[in-house]
């Protein structure tokens, strides 16, 4: 197993923001981690390469290729990041240093992690830019970030993330800042690289449309917990958790003709204000008293249905 997360809990100061999160991603598969802002998906994904803000603390277990990452020293994490874990963020412009050429920055990664010489690293950076579909890569490698369009810079960011052939690629909202036509190209690129390089990919997104296009499996987060995790086909066609069901019905579909968009009433409870029992109960159309006593993130609807309590 490339990535194995067990009972991950993250606290910000005294406030618990992520609880009891477990999932695994094998090589060659893509897991979508979806949820709305504040659900804990970005904190969860950023805890893997050790990129949590200083006030956050992660407990539990995160194993990459069998090796425990929680508790690893900064020096140890530095070696893992970039080499075994590649990360693509939403805003490539914030990830590149404006004062250096794009080629220099990709080469820097290669010199650091792969101990390549200056010339070899530059040559490899040019190859990588070509691999992610950038035209005239030798020329573009000498360009500064501001001369790249948003889509091109995101391609360059991907080139940097895959430079050391990482076992795991984390893509955190990689297309949310892009125009729709560019978004489609980047999604296609990520998917084809993931397959050809056999990487495990964790795709973090709030956009169910892009998740449907990219992921093999989907884990849905709500108020700091994973409430449902299944195969993408099953999740989209037969969601089991009422939150997933409501979320999917709230997603606009360009094929719709008129009609109203469903919306879930209310708002997700904030960290520190999570109710006892099922955290979705206050917004759930199926909730009964027993839900408020349910112990964890799993919906008890199936059990209730079996017991004849509910339809």
């Amino acid at each position, binding site marked *: 197993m490339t990535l194995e997360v067990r009972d991950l809990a993250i606290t910000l100061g005294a406030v618990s923001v992520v609880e009891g999160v477990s999932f695994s991603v094998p090589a060659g598969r893509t897991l979508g981690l979806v949820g709305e802002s504040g659900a804990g998906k970005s904190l969860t994904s950023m805890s893997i390469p050790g990129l949590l803000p200083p006030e956050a603390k992660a407990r539990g277990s995160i194993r990459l290729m069998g090796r425990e990452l929680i508790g690893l020293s900064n020096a140890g994490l530095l070696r893992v990041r970039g080499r075994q874990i590649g990360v693509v963020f939403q805003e490539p412009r914030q990830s590149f240093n404006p004062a250096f050429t794009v080629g220099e920055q990709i080469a820097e990664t290669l010199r650091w992690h792969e101990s390549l010489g200056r010339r070899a690293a530059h040559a490899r950076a040019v190859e990588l830019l070509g691999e992610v579909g950038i035209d005239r890569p030798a020329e573009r490698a000498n360009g500064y970030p501001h001369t790249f369009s948003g889509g091109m810079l995101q391609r360059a960011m991907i080139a940097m993330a895959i430079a050391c052939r990482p076992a795991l690629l984390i893509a955190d909202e990689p297309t949310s800042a892009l125009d729709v036509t560019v978004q489609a190209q980047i999604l296609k690129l990520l998917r084809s690289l993931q397959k050809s390089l056999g990487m495990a990919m964790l795709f973090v997104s709030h956009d*169910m*449309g892009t998740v449907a*296009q990219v992921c093999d499996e989907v884990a849905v987060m709500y108020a700091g917990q994973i409430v449902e995790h299944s195969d993408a086909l099953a999740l989209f066609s037969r969601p089991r958790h009422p939150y997933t069901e409501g*979320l999917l019905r709230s997603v606009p579909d360009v094929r719709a003709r008129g009609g109203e*968009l469903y919306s879930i009433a209310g*708002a997700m409870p904030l960290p520190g204000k999570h109710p006892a029992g099922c955290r979705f109960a206050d917004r759930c159309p199926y909730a009964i008293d027993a839900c408020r006593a349910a112990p964890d993130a799993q919906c008890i609807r199936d059990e209730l249905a079996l017991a004849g309590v509910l339809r």
Partner: protein
Amino acid sequence: MKSLDVRGLRKRFGSVEAVRGVDLDLRPGETLALVGESGSGKSTIARLVLQLITPDSGSIELDGQSLIGLRGDALRAMRRRLQMIFQDPYGSLDPTLSIRQVLAEPFRVHFRRRPAEDELDRLMGDVGLSSSLLDRMPHELSGGQRQRVAIARALAVQPEFIACDEVVSALDVSTRAQILTLLRSLQKTRSLSMLFITHDLAIVPYIAQRVAVIYRGEIVERGDVDEIFSRPQHAYTQALLAAVPVPDPRLRDAA
């Protein structure tokens, strides 16, 4: 019932021609979606219509009255009838004012009076907010609540026309659905005419009856949403529609 008529609108910023001869007509009580990607000129059009910037040429008329070059009281009177809601409700709400003060502002500017308590209650109710939030500050509200406040502020002066510029783009899925539903019902109950500017094609069928597709400052295709989305004629519209990710993994295109 009023209608808005835009003809031959042009605007250049330096060497860039942002809007290149745009015609739009917004019929009373209807929502027209203006869709395009970043840099297409769609937001510039909203700013031109609301006279936040002046066009280089072209005409903008509300019920036959030209809006271009209005000043002073005439400009203020026009602004009352045409309101605008922006993408980022945090950026458009003064962080130093309470919600009560934010909502009092349009009454002061346009009616030269303070709103009565029941007027504020009604406004908050209309946008689905509890009056108990009136004394909160913008940063204490969620993104969805802030956008509801921005809508309430626009509605306060009983406008006939509202331009919405990417108003749900910064919101989460379930909040976006709530705000779209709210806008749609307000548009119906108040017979508002709405210019709905967005880059997100998927939401258009839920909010608009007609659509205009803008590319590099020009409208390339326009018509009924059902018609255009079912049978797009222009290559750009076809490319845009094809690129929208569909929330169904069975329809994944083979990579």
